[in-house]
């Protein structure tokens, strides 16, 4: 009987998987997603609805940002052309359904890696491309200089369907402060509500605060408080069940980070083919058969570095030079005091 009820209920609302035929098979070396991507001629990538520095479209529809660069790297590796990406802007609420239902193949949308997301809902996180933490923004005139000065009754604007909602509850609950959460689906609505004085403070990842501050009517009247109340490792996500595709995305990201570590960038990549260091030679496809493991040719990583650049170039172009977060903080290489550390490509 229970089985019947279970089946009936699953019938009622299976939009996500309704007409999506079973596409994933457990093939050892073959990736269905890779095959489909090659057939289609472009990588389908889910991004944010506009977060400067991470994924943001200009007037003519060109996407830029470090999240965008991850998808471009995958396109360069698999299709040979970093511009062959179709970007789908998604709200926080839509993002996982879009991925699990097969509407997109990579979700690169400042998404926090957590246990329940990784294990529970058919997703796999492949790495971290930005180490972030949640913070608060307040008006300068308020005189508040630390999160310890929030009082009972503070209204807090934030985004729907994010880890932010949970962290903020943990934060205020543990301090015994009552607060009013005002939760919007779109980031722009949150910014507008905070700007209009609906809320006393605006909370999200600190990188997000820095980026959204530029959209306020008077950015200089606002300040981000120094405290960080959570760990937010942001990274690209793929669907569970296609481990080859998962590896391709993971190592495309790792290639960018390792390239920076070895000083390989978009302008010197070709010259590095004759380097004395075998690790560098592997990184530009001059030694070893690394691409074969994914069913790719041997120049896959060279193309990533040449067309997209290494992680440092991407960070500088998108986040430092735009004035969002000039200081790399934890997102510096482990060799330079940060925590960016990737397994060796060999």
């Amino acid at each position: 009987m229970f089985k019947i009820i279970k089946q009936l209920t699953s019938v009622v609302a299976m939009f996500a998987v309704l007409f999506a035929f079973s596409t994933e098979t457990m093939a050892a070396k073959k990736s269905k997603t890779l095959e489909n991507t090659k057939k289609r001629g472009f990588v389908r990538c889910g991004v944010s609805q506009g977060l400067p520095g991470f994924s943001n479209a200009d007037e003519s529809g060109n996407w830029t940002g470090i999240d965008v660069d991850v998808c471009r790297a995958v396109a360069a590796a698999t299709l040979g052309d970093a511009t062959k990406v179709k970007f789908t802007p998604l709200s926080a609420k839509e993002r996982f359904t879009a991925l699990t239902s097969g509407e997109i193949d990579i979700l690169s949308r400042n998404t926090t890696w957590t246990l329940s997301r990784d294990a529970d809902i058919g997703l796999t996180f492949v790495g971290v491309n930005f180490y972030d933490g949640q913070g608060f923004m307040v008006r300068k005139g308020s005189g508040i200089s630390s999160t310890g000065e929030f009082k009972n009754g503070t209204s807090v604007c934030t985004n729907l369907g994010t880890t932010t909602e949970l962290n903020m509850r943990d934060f205020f609950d543990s301090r015994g402060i009552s607060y009013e959460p005002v939760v919007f689906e779109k980031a722009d609505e949150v910014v507008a509500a905070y700007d209009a004085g609906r809320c006393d403070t605006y909370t999200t990842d600190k990188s997000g605060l820095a980026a959204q501050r530029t959209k306020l009517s008077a950015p200089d009247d606002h300040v981000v408080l120094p405290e960080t109340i959570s760990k937010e490792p942001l990274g690209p996500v793929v669907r569970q069940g296609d481990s080859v595709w998962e590896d391709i995305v993971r190592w495309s990201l790792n290639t960018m980070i390792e390239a920076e570590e070895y000083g390989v960038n978009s302008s010197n990549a070709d010259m590095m083919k004759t380097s004395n260091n075998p690790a560098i030679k592997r990184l530009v496809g001059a030694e070893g058969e690394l691409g074969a493991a994914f069913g790719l040719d041997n120049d896959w990583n060279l193309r990533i570095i040449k067309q997209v650049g290494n992680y440092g170039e991407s960070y500088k172009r998108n986040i430092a030079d735009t004035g969002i977060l000039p200081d790399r903080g934890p997102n510096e290489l482990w060799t330079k005091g940060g925590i960016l550390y990737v397994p060796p490509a060999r």
Partner: protein
Amino acid sequence: MNNIIKRYIPQILAILFVVLIFGFLTLNAQTNMDNRGIDFGFGFLSQESSFDVQFSLIEYSGSDSYARAFLVGLLNTLLVSFISIIICTILGVIIGVARLSSNYLIKNSAAWYVEFFRNIPLLLQIFFWYYAALRALPMPEKADAWFGVTYMTVKGYYIPAMVWENLNVFLYCGLAAIIAIIVLRNYANKLRDTQGKQIPVLLYSVGLLIVLPLLSFLFGGVSLEFEIPELKKLSKISYIYEGGISLPPELIALVLALSLYTSTFVAECVRAGIEGVSKGQKEAAASVGLTPNQVLKLVIMPQALRIIIPPTTNQYLNLTKNSSLAAAIAYPDLVLVFAGTALMQTGKAIEIVSITMLTYLTISLTIAAVMNWYNKKIEIKEK
């Protein structure tokens, strides 16, 4: 034999077709969910939700379960629907009657009102009230008092809260008044049918409703105090009102938009109902010596209601379903809390969407059942 085949074969085929489609969809969903490693189950409902909700009618915190979060969202949906239905009915009746007025100004203002509010998409109206009208309100510290004790601010409408002592005695008195009114009405009807006497029932009813609860204040130990909202400083430049009740601007915008929009449809139903009663009825009633009041109450309204109720039911159903647009302006209704935050935190899309759909279906069917019952009660009884 031939007849039986003709009659049953198409029906059996149709049923088979539906079963096959449903079977295929179920199987397809299960295969896809299995492949993607998504579990199906309702166990998450008893887990700790660990998120807070802006506005709740019942005690709720992040340490409560998802089931309770569902209840919070459901009650918020019911609250906004209930308030809006009452306002739109009152407004709708007034506007509908006004459209039939012989006064040129009243008649045309009502017509313009209907044409204006019914022809602008509801979502836009919600946005207008929320983003344009309510965002332009003053900050709490700059707000002037309305009626001396209420404050309309960008953070919400603050009104005094009632602090009761012995509230139950007061409620019992109210209940007693209602029972007395029902008894009185039955008695008055009987008197009218048997002896032809009329008693001013309405006058007595109002009297009873005022006097009995008043007595509870004098002799029942009931007392009522008002807790008036007071300005409190949160930081150098931000303030809030504490004490009293705070109605969030999201709720106000939603109620305004829903009730103004739906009232135009109700007004048209009312107008259609009254115009649907033929003139002869009114003239005949007047000619047997009924007063204009009696004509309206005993002849016109009973017939008009029969025409008004069924389409008005549709409007109530629409209003309730339209309340799900709340998600666009951060009012924590069922869709925002349960099909929004809870769905995102658990990832149980199929379970949560199906629960939400079944809930709206249940609410709609309940409203329809109540209205159908009322419709049955007032329809023509063939004797």
